[in-house]
């Protein structure tokens, strides 16, 4: 029962938010709209063109939806890392260090924002629509891939978030940088990566493994060849990439905490 502590911390956070009902409802709507804007951009784009990087509108929508759902879930759990500078500046971070729990899970559970479910809901709706529209040669494996992809994507995004926010331990106002990486990689992964220039592609596909959030899994689902020449099985490796990213993020976080305790606030 003692291991239920994190669900309890999340529950506490949810109850806190419900003490501000009106602002909660507004935030929820704002989040659905925010997700909608990006959708509108894609739809307008496709009134002018028929294909983007060799992909049809609905195929691009599928990538957009995978990325959106993954980002939404990651935002739910890792988004509160954006508050890290405040934690460090006000000394609240020291309070986390005084508890017999890990700092990262404490922060993740500290500020689960239900309104972010608005974003996830929107993305899932588009995902179901796109899955119904695009030609997929369904097999049990592909069903699993469809379910696993947003989850692996969420882990990848969360890892990116952790690594980017770790910068705040060195530069307390590193939030701008962190946001550029996290939100930037979301914008990036919503489109087929072959539309980007080569250096950006390499950076965002393999250093920040954004291409494994939506692009490669979508290729595998659609049974399409990678225009960039990577073999077809790459689309099935997202969970592995996610595990690797999470491990790296764990190490970076530990290193950052060691730095913090070593040089102080």
């Amino acid at each position, binding site marked *: 029962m003692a291991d239920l502590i994190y669900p*309890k911390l999340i529950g506490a956070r949810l109850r806190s938010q419900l003490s501000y009902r009106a602002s909660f409802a507004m935030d929820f709507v704002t989040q659905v709209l925010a997700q909608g804007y990006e959708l509108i951009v894609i739809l307008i784009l496709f009134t002018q063109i028929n294909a983007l990087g060799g992909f049809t509108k609905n195929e691009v929508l599928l990538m957009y939806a995978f990325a959106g759902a993954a980002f939404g879930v990651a935002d739910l759990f890792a988004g509160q890392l954006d508050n890290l500078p405040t934690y460090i500046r006000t*000394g609240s971070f*020291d309070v986390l*260090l005084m508890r*017999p*729990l890990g700092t990262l899970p404490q922060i993740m559970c500290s500020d689960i924002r239900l309104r972010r479910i608005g974003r996830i809901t929107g993305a899932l709706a588009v995902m179901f629509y796109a899955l119904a529209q695009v030609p997929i040669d369904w097999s049990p494996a592909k069903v699993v891939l469809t379910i696993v992809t947003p989850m692996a994507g969420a882990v990848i995004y969360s890892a990116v978030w952790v690594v980017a926010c770790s910068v705040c331990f060195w530069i307390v106002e590193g939030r701008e940088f962190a946001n550029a990486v996290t939100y930037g990689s979301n914008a990036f992964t919503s489109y087929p990566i072959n539309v980007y220039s080569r250096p950006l592609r390499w950076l965002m596909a393999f250093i920040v493994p954004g291409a494994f959030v939506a692009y490669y899994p979508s290729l595998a689902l659609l049974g399409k060849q990678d225009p960039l020449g990577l073999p077809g099985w790459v689309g099935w490796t997202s969970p592995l990439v996610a595990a690797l990213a999470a491990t790296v993020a764990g190490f970076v976080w530990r290193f950052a905490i060691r730095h913090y305790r070593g040089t*102080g606030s």
Partner: protein
Amino acid sequence: MIEVRELRREFKVATSKGLRRNYKTVTAVDGVTFEVQAGEAVGYVGPNGAGKSTTIKMLTGILVPTSGHITVDGVDPSRQRRDLAKRIGVVFGQRSQLWWDLPLRDSFDLLRSIYRVSAEDYRKRLDECVELLGLQELLITPVRQLSLGQRMRGEITAALLHAPELLVLDEPTIGLDLESKERLREFLADINTRRGTTLLLTTHDLDDIERLCPRLMVIDHGRVLADGPLDELRAEVTPDRELVIDLREPGPAPDVPGVTAVRSEANGLRHHLTFRRAETTAAQLITQVVRQVEVHDLAVVEPEIDDVIRKLYQRQLDQDVRR
């Protein structure tokens, strides 16, 4: 309970000169050594920037020492942070460990889960704190609506739910009104004497020390200037005491052997007689005085604790200058 040897902590501080950035090393804690036995109550005082908070952060495992050795309740704070967290309670006067938007009781419930306290122990300890600190009415109030004094009582309860042997308090009475301060002191004195909880507290309010801490440690510039019972320190740095006498009729001050200085006020109605505590006792002095003049009232004044600490700083400065 606490063992500290040759503790040192340096910080790199950025100093900007134009566009160039230089770093200089500042030593916040510079070779601090002390021991605290189980059951003691120790006041840790010093001016701002003296190294108090840095020491506390190292004792609680938040910061890792640059060099030196610390053991707290048998644990190395920098290596076994989580282990230590289960054994000690920490209260920071200026930051909260309660959940801002939730009722006080919810914070306690969460801490019970975090520290894995059994339901039975939890109820017993909570009931005790609630009763002694008068929290009954406040348990259902969201923390954000509590006054500072009420919140501090909540913070202290929160720190005691896992029954730590050592309670570390960093400026627990800062910003509180007199009544709240007194209530906290009374409670802390009680858990120290009755339950045997070791207390280590930093403070700017010297009444806290007078009331709570038989032992005082004074730190400045990262070094311990003095460490010992308050009475001894007082005797050591301020050898003078003062006898204040109010006369029935205005008149000259009595001429008594052993008095080193006389100050008169109210046209000779009141006289302050300074004497050395090592040479004369107050009793001897009073016997002499009442033989010579008709006394309306008299009092023996001990130097204020502020004076003691100021003198300690002064003594250190003098030594530094001489070196």
